């Protein structure tokens, strides 16, 4: 047991799976000698060699297409897309091929593939190094979409993703890599994909979130607690498939729900969660379901004054929570 950064937990998961299964290999840009631009794969080339840690040409569709082929031929590839913002050239390979291979072959071919990508803003990365792209993929039947909030989950969920026989999109918030620390046990464990967890128990309202935003929710819950409002924080961990039982149980208890994500509002994961609550917890609601999300702006702009004006944070959650509590 030791405390580590989220980035170290991701690296440990990769290292342990590479060591445990000769079918696992990594492919991505700059992941070899350079150890990845965030250093997630640092040291892995030296440890496992160039046939297990493959520096890809600068071609996202090609590397995902190659990985799909390898997955269909008995391997368990893990692709690193350098920034989630650059996944779109591979969108067709992910959506038209990987996601529907099992269905379209009537269960003959599966695609055990993981695509990892650093996502999220707050690092002054501008329009093309700051996006959250999970909603595009959460829409797609056949995909699983995971967004861990802490080192324990990151390691356990990534191991589960690598061992899963389906294509899994795994989004790591780049601001969380070095700022979010937590206890991670020694040895092998997995965290099941598709299971949410209650991070903080509360009575008056449910804050439902995933990824780095979970920490903003916990901070907001602390603030609200001082005002006598008890917030429950639900960490979805997986945005497809959604753990509807856990989130509904929380909302049925509190009667008030606010979904929080850094991705922009319209068509985001929050919309789906809100629809589920509206259908299956309608009679328990004491207030309209609320969402805290980035506004519908293309992505976070570069200048700190501009980015800070758009990033949803604890203060936004507190403001909405007060409205909900007072309703």
């Amino acid at each position, binding site marked *: 047991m030791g405390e580590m950064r989220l980035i170290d937990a991701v690296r440990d998961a990769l290292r342990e799976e590479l060591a445990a299964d000769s079918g696992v*290999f990594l492919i991505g840009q700059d992941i070899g000698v350079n150890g990845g631009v965030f250093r997630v794969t640092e040291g892995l080339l030296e440890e496992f060699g160039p*046939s297990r840690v493959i520096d*890809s*040409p600068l*071609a996202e*569709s*090609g*590397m*995902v*297409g*190659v*990985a*799909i*082929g*390898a*997955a*269909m*031929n*008995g*391997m368990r*590839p893990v692709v690193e897309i350098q920034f989630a913002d650059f996944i779109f*050239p591979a969108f*067709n*390979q992910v959506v*038209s*091929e990987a996601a*529907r*291979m*099992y*269905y*379209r*072959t*009537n*269960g*003959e*071919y*599966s695609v*055990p593939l993981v695509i990892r990508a650093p996502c999220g803003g707050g690092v002054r990365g501008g329009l093309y190094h700051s996006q959250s792209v999970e909603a595009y993929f959460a829409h797609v*039947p*056949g995909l*699983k979409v995971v967004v861990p909030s802490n080192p324990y989950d990151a390691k356990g969920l990534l191991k589960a993703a690598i061992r899963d*026989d*389906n294509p899994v999109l795994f989004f790591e918030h780049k601001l969380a890599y070095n700022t979010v620390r937590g206890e991670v046990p020694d040895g092998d464990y997995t965290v099941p994909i598709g299971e949410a967890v209650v991070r903080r128990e509360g009575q008056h309202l449910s804050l439902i979130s995933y990824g780095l935003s979970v920490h903003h929710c916990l901070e907001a819950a602390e603030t609200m607690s001082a005002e006598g409002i008890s917030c429950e924080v639900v960490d979805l961990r997986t945005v497809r498939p959604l753990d509807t039982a856990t989130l509904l149980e929380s909302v049925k208890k509190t009667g008030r729900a606010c979904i929080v994500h850094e991705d922009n509002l319209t068509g985001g994961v929050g919309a789906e969660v809100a629809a589920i609550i509206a259908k299956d917890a309608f009679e328990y609601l004491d207030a309209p379901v609320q969402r805290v999300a980035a506004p519908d702006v293309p992505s976070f702009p570069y200048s700190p004054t501009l980015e800070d004006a758009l990033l949803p944070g604890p203060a936004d959650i507190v403001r909405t929570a007060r409205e909900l509590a007072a309703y």
Partner: protein
Amino acid sequence: MPDNGGIDRLRDSGLDAHDAQQIYRHMLLARAISEKSWLLTRQGRVLFSMPCDGQEAADVASAYALDAAIDFIVPYARSLGAMLVKGMTSQEVMLNMFGKAADPNSGGRQMPMHWGHKKLGIISMGSSVGTTIPRASGIALATKLRGENAVTMVYFGEGSASEGDFHEGLAFAGVHRLPVVFLCNNNGWATSVPVELQSAETQIAKRAQGYGFPGVTVDGLDPLPVYQAVRTAVDRARSGDGPTLVETNTIRMMPHSSSDDHLRYRTQEDLDAERQLDPLPRFRDFLVSAGLLDEESDQTLREAVDQEVEDAISYGDAAPSPDPATARNGVYAP
């Protein structure tokens, strides 16, 4: 009198009399299935078809150069001839054409002629062309990483060679010297768009130079040069020397699909002239001149092929449709 020059040509291509007869039979079978499938669409009994008429020599002879037991094929919709050589039966093809539950390609989930047959090493294709090309490189990468001996061959048209995935798949295979053969059927047409509107350089094989491996163009209407070129490419791949791009110049005697009317963009004169190049009578004449076939044995063979396809149609038509209760099954692997 047999023309010994024909036998010499055959031998020079690496084939013997039995091979030639097998290739001819598969060409006839592919044509018969293609023609009868077309008629089934006109009758409304089958809802979609993509004829392969005109490229039987290219598809059959190229697949014949593979080791059917261990090698992989990544097909496209016009690869019927290659599917038959790889081991798909006429009955399986007809289960696919009729979209039946027992169709090994997709159990009726995909449109007809969207091939994929795991037991035969046929990698599933969808309708988004070109995505198969990096997939083939990935199949070959896995083979190479495990130190196995299999070769992967991916078929596509010259239209698909305009997709970015063509470039990305070939570039990757070149860098890693993967055991893969890229087989481009250049029939001059991507639905209605002629190859001159795909690229100012219409010879696709030249692009291989840009990826650091050989590219060859052969007459795709004659099985012998096709077999010879692909066999060389397969041997090269299997021995660890990397990929080859083989371009077979073929013809498209029929519309793009059963939903297409090629007279909207081609003239009858053009189609009539192209029909004169039909690879089937050409190869039959070769076999006759080489003393490997005569009028009677040809007739017997054609009747047998015709009967095989008719039986397969009856079988496919009568087979059970997928149960609607299964339509939501299998979105995720367990």
